[in-house]
């Protein structure tokens, strides 16, 4: 017979064991889930970022032959199937002729602009047929108009370009004469260029590039008919192909030796940029043709031996391979996204090139190196997302990384001395009762939301500091000096009353003189400014050292973010210091060391790893902080170390730009790359700091164990 109480006791124990196992399981699962979640974020970010570095590719997709072999000039792939233009001027599709565009001449050249420009057909009799577009960019075949470009000879090449009010169509005839049609509003004007050319290319606002042999000339056409030659240059080898890229400010020049060079219009549009850039060559045979694609400043280059390369204006050669067989240069048609090129070879073979280069504008060089962007004369690190798709993308992560580190560094400069000073004081000098009051008070500051700090700092402190810059700087010097002086004075004076005063009076006794120092600094600073700095410190700084002062600057960020990370720093450092075994300090004091000596020689060295980890965690927090930086800085992606200029941090950049970025686009993935960098940085710093703290704890345990 078993005793019922024993039985119930046993059941109870079993239940408790089960519960214990369950709890262990739940806790372990939660822990693993947290780690898994963090890792999942890292994996997700990595997966989202990786496509940025996929190799670009040009695929030859469909090869077919079309009817009217040999007589076809250009082929389009529209929504409703294929259509093509025959050399004798018929627009046809599989069913038959849709429209007859030309009567008694043949088509010799086609220029197809974007959806605000017409389709221009250059004819063998010197005329051009212009097919207008409706307001949605569709061609209206029935309303084609005719204009005369050349009196006698036939048109050999055409090029279209944008102007502020309309477009310009430049043409070259079989003899090499150059003329243009300028469209502004409803008026169409013919302009003649008094030069002969082998190749022409049309840029923005009437900039026309022409080449004859090795001579390359930039013309500026104007609607009043008076064109001017802006610049003439001799190239190293005869020019064999010319094309402006999207935007019309960068000219690509291919020559007889297979070299490809980039010429940029100078910032004032009055000539070439001094430094030309050359790209990796495909081979050493002449460049036959350059095809500018309408997005991302991409282009295709073809050379005489049938090689083809896909280039991007900043990141260079992205892909090379063999071009589909088609010699002489085929007629091409490109879709609006620049992802498909219809390619018609000589004997009616039709090929579709699929261009898979969604992130061609990104390479290690564009992310990290200073580049000379369009419209600029010097190489710079710039971050400016392309919003409308026409701008040149400026995707350098360097200014953002710089801004992040700069903000964090200045925040540390403000926070470390204050937080460590407070930690040392409360851990080593305060009574246990005082510490019990102070510590929660400082840690409560942690609960202050970043938005509130950011708001106050951005809208109240920043304008105040701008108005009282001298006063603020004097304060920054006077407060530390003042506290030391007050401390010393207090020590001298209070020795007499030490025993009679309550401990709290130390605080009051320091506060009142410090407040006086602050008041004096602020009220005397205008005088100081008037005596030393000619009345205005900011002007003086600019004249003396060339320093600009921005209202939203690193000084304000340093103070605001410093305030935000003080609680973290203080709390961790205080923990490390108060964990130092009391036996050590007592031993040191007993041997006759002063308190300062004990602190410096015993307590600080023992706690140093803990303090270091506190600083690291504080730095990690400062790097990841978003709201304060977003609201306090002007988000200016500058690269200056100056305390008085703004910055743009990775985290703030993410907050500002992620909502607008098209999911899956280059911009979006670059923002996630920024996020990944932040993640890796804070993960590494925090892990390292935790490891240091763990080792420190072990060391303490050893001391306690011995004691």
């Amino acid at each position, binding site marked *: 017979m078993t005793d019922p109480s024993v039985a119930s006791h046993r059941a109870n124990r079993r239940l408790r064991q089960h519960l214990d196992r369950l709890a262990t399981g739940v806790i372990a699962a939660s822990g693993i889930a947290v780690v898994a979640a963090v890792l999942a974020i890292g994996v997700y970010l990595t997966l989202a970022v990786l496509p940025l570095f996929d190799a670009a590719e040009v695929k030859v997709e469909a090869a077919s032959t079309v009817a009217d072999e040999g007589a076809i000039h250009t082929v389009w792939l529209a929504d409703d199937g294929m259509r093509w233009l025959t050399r004798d001027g018929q627009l046809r599709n599989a069913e038959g002729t849709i429209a007859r565009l030309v009567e008694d001449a043949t088509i010799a050249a086609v220029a197809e602009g974007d959806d605000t420009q017409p389709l221009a057909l250059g004819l063998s009799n010197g005329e051009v047929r212009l097919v207008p577009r409706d307001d949605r960019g569709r061609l209206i075949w029935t309303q084609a108009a005719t204009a005369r470009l050349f009196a006698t000879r036939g048109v050999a090449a055409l090029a279209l370009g944008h102007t502020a009010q309309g477009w310009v169509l430049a043409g070259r005839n079989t003899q090499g004469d150059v003329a243009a049609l300028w469209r502004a509003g409803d008026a169409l004007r013919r302009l003649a260029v008094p030069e002969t050319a082998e190749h022409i290319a049309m840029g923005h606002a009437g900039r026309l590039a022409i080449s004859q042999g090795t001579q390359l000339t930039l013309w500026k056409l104007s609607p009043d008919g008076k064109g001017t030659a802006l610049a003439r240059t001799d190239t190293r080898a005869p020019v064999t192909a010319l094309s402006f890229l999207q935007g019309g400010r960068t000219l690509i020049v291919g020559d007889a030796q297979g070299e490809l060079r980039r010429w940029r219009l100078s*910032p004032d*549009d009055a000539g070439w940029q001094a430094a030309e850039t050359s790209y990796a060559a495909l081979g050493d045979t002449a460049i036959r043709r350059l095809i500018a694609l309408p997005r991302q400043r991409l282009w295709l280059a073809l050379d005489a031996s049938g090689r083809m390369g896909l280039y991007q204006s900043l990141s260079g050669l992205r892909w090379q391979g063999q071009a589909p067989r088609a010699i002489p240069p085929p007629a091409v048609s490109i879709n609006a996204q620049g992802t498909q090129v219809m390619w018609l070879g000589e004997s009616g073979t039709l090929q579709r090139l699929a261009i898979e280069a969604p992130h061609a504008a990104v390479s290690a060089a564009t992310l990290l190196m200073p580049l000379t962007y369009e419209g600029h004369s010097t190489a710079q690190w710039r971050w400016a997302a392309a919003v409308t798709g026409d701008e040149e993308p400026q995707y350098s992560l360097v200014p953002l990384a710089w801004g992040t580190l700069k903000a964090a560094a200045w925040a540390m400069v403000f926070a470390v001395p204050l937080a460590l000073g407070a930690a040392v004081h409360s851990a080593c000098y305060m009574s246990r009762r005082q510490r019990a009051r102070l510590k929660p008070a400082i840690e409560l500051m942690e609960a202050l939301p970043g938005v509130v700090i950011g708001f106050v700092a951005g809208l109240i402190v920043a304008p105040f500091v701008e108005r009282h810059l001298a006063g603020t700087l004097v304060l920054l010097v006077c407060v530390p000096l003042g506290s030391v002086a007050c401390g010393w004075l207090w020590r001298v004076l209070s020795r007499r009353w030490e025993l009679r005063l309550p401990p709290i009076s130390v605080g009051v006794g320091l506060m009142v003189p410090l407040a006086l120092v602050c008041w004096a600094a602020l009220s005397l600073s205008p005088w100081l400014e008037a005596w030393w700095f000619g009345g205005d410190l900011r002007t003086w700084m600019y004249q003396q050292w060339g320093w600009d002062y921005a209202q939203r600057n690193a000084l304000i960020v340093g103070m605001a973010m410093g305030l935000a990370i003080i609680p973290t720093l203080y709390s961790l450092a205080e923990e490390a210091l108060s964990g130092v075994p009391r036996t050590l300090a007592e031993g040191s004091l007993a041997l006759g060391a002063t308190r300062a000596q004990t602190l410096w020689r015993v307590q600080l060295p023992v706690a140093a790893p803990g303090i270091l980890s506190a600083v690291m965690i504080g730095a990690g927090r400062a790097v990841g902080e978003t709201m304060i930086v977003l609201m306090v800085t002007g988000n200016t992606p500058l690269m200056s170390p100056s305390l008085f200029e703004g910055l743009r941090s990775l985290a703030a950049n993410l907050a500002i730009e992620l909502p607008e970025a*098209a999911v899956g686009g280059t911009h979006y993935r670059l923002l996630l790359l920024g996020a990944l960098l932040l993640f890796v940085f804070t993960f590494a710093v925090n892990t390292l700091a935790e490891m240091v703290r763990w080792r420190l704890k072990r060391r303490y345990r050893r001391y306690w164990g011995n004691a």
Partner: protein
Amino acid sequence: MSERQAGRRGAGRWQRLVTMALALCWLPVMAMAAPLNGTLGSVGSDTLGGLMTQWGERLSARYPQVRVQIQAAGSGTAPPALAAGATRFGAMSRPMTDAERADFIAHQGHPPLAVPVALDALTLFVHRDNPLDTLSLPEVEALFADTRYCGQVPPLRRWGALGLDGDWAKRPIARFGRNTASGSHALFRREALCGGNFRRDVNELPGSSAVVAAVGRSREAIGYAGLGYPTAMVKVLALRDDEGTPRLPTHDNVVSGRYPLTRPLYIYVNLAPGERLPALERAFFDLVLSPEGQAVVARQGFVPLPKPRLAAARRALRLPPLVDVTQSSSK
């Protein structure tokens, strides 16, 4: 008496029964016609945020079952949300770009419908103490851009370069503007900078009121924002046109386009061609494109659509034409 009363009571009972039966028959019909309910969501422009909220409140007042949710983080946020199908309304203070349109078509299979709902102008403003009154467009470019795509004015570093004297001559220029998600930013870049690049030291703030507040608190600042935002803290500048006449962004100058930086504000709708708007969205647009809705536009400091454009917008949405009181009375 009592009999008659009883009879009347009986008749009353019958009447009640009949009305109840009739009411029961009518119920489904009433349910179809009357109560509009549901939630109308919009994502997009910060400039349009105030207007959308006002219109939403009015719609909720008309149809108490209707809720309107507005997210106003910037025009750039509208196309991704529209394309992903997260919203059917996208408020934008600039037209969609080709790439955004293409992205939308790729996801939804048809182009979005752009409905102009008000006119706006980008205003430039300085601190109220600043003696400057007018600027030319090339000067605007020189202030905000470090490219020179519109004019050739050298970089302006001090207010003195714009002709201010005394203390102002030495003062530096602080520049404030919107972040890149904003249609104001994109439009300013296209129109005032001719597509060039902003200087890197132009402060980018998330929100037009933040720009106005920042300029209002900094004596040396200049900024840009939509029409409805400037407060008494700042002074709106006139822009000189090609002949040198200063043009303030007044109602007349905006409608006539004499003020250079004008723009329509749009609501983009995910509406397949040939499809009719759902009743709720129809009611919303009927309100927005009515005299009452346009009065809200004027009260918020923007410019109401001129009548022909209003009529065209209503036609595009297949809304009934407005009865024009003034015209019919004059006839």
